[in-house]
């Protein structure tokens, strides 16, 4: 038996059962009550389904409007954050710039102070040389007065002292003015060397040379080949003439 006939049989059986049930209820007097109950249930279920459907779509719409509002509020908050964040950023940039500037200033001031201090020490050295020389001269002048040393010796001493003092002053002045680095006391300044000018190679010639190498190789090979061919030809012709000469000689 096919599936359709099974269904048809089943449906028929159900119809018969329902009809019997209805007939029984009519006999019992409960049919009206049953119909009323079933009708109310049907109406309620239909209305409930419609209400649920309507509630759902309207709730979905409300959520969509909430999403829209949330998006705009999110945009507004981000815009406000961006605007508010600009102020501390500018302040920090200014502070960082000022700090960097102060650091550079302090570094330069330190270098200047170091140079000045070194210069003072150099001057102090000259003063000390003068002091020691004058003291020695004073002692020997006293001895000259007392007759312990001669005038010539004293004059020589004075002359040498003066020479030493002048040389020290001139050397120090010249070194500080011309040789010493003007920024760092402990460094020496070197002149900028002007060495010989190196002419850069002519790049197009070189590039032609490089790119022309295969062509040149071919040309050279051809030339060599031509030379070999000429040489061989000459050799053969000479050989031939030699043999002819030999043959003629034999014939005669």
């Amino acid at each position: 038996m096919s599936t359709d006939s099974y269904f048809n049989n089943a449906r028929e059986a159900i119809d018969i059962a329902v009809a019997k049930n209805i007939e029984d209820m009519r006999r019992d007097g409960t049919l009206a009550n049953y119909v009323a109950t079933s009708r109310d249930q049907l109406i309620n279920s239909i209305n409930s389904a419609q209400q649920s459907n309507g509630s759902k779509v309207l709730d979905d719409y409300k959520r969509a409007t909430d999403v829209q509002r949330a998006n705009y509020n999110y945009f507004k908050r981000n815009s406000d954050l961006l605007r508010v964040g600009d102020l501390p950023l500018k302040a920090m940039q200014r502070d960082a710039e000022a700090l960097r500037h102060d650091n550079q200033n302090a570094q330069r001031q330190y270098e200047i102070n170091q140079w000045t201090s070194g210069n003072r020490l150099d001057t102090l050295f000259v003063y000390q040389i003068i002091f020691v020389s004058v003291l020695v001269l004073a002692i020997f002048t006293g001895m000259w007065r007392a007759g312990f040393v001669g005038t010539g010796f004293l004059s020589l001493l004075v002359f040498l002292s003066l020479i030493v003092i002048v040389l020290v002053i001139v050397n120090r002045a010249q070194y500080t003015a011309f040789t010493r680095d003007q920024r760092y006391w402990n460094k020496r300044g070197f002149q900028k060397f002007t060495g010989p000018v190196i002419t850069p190679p002519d790049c197009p010639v070189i590039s032609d040379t490089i790119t022309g190498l295969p062509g040149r190789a071919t040309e050279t090979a051809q030339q060599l080949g031509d030379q070999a061919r000429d040489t061989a030809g000459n050799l053969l012709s000479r050989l031939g003439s030699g043999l002819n000469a030999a043959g003629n000689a034999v014939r005669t």
Partner: protein
Amino acid sequence: MSLCPARTSAFSMTELDALYAGPSAVCPNPSPPDSDRNQDQYKLLSNAAQTRIVNDLKARGIIPAPPAMNAQSIDEVIGQYRDKLNALGESMKAEYCFYYSRYAYAIQQWINAIADRGSSQTDSISAYGSRSIALNRRLIDLTTIISAITKELYDTASKTSDSINSLNAQLDEQFGKLKKQAEVLQREAPEAEIKKRMVEFTKEKTKANDNLLSLYFFLDVVALGILFYVYKAA
């Protein structure tokens, strides 16, 4: 809680046939023909018909146009847009309840007529039956259109996400700059302190050297004086 308030009084046939006359009615009048519907047993509105109806509602201003994402005009404009969306929601709810109350009455009368079937009920069955079917179709069309409007709102929201994402990128960039400046300050502040101390040290050193210079200058003068005195002493 039910969506629509219950109505106790009856509807006349004219009232059952009435169309919603609100200013922001979304359901098209008359109902879209079969050509605008899917060719299946459910006969829902096709996607093309939904799009056309939504575009028509946008053109008429019933669906409010979303304002531009502009920081200058955001507060007031958002408030107005939100109010328009809320008003549209209320209008659609009113329209739904308008048709639902009529449908509930018609379906009840139809089922009652079927249940109390006699020869006198045939006209009632036919009248209420056709109206129930028409009102049901109306309700389904209305919910379909409301769903299409909701989808349109979500699509609009997703388009605005580009503006929001660009702001997020700007915020990230700003945060990066702040962090970098904080690192610079953190790194250079101790260095500044050290350099300040170094400058003070060199100032002290120079002052000490100045004192020594003054001392030796004085000593030089004294020594020259001694030399001159010794030379001149008889």
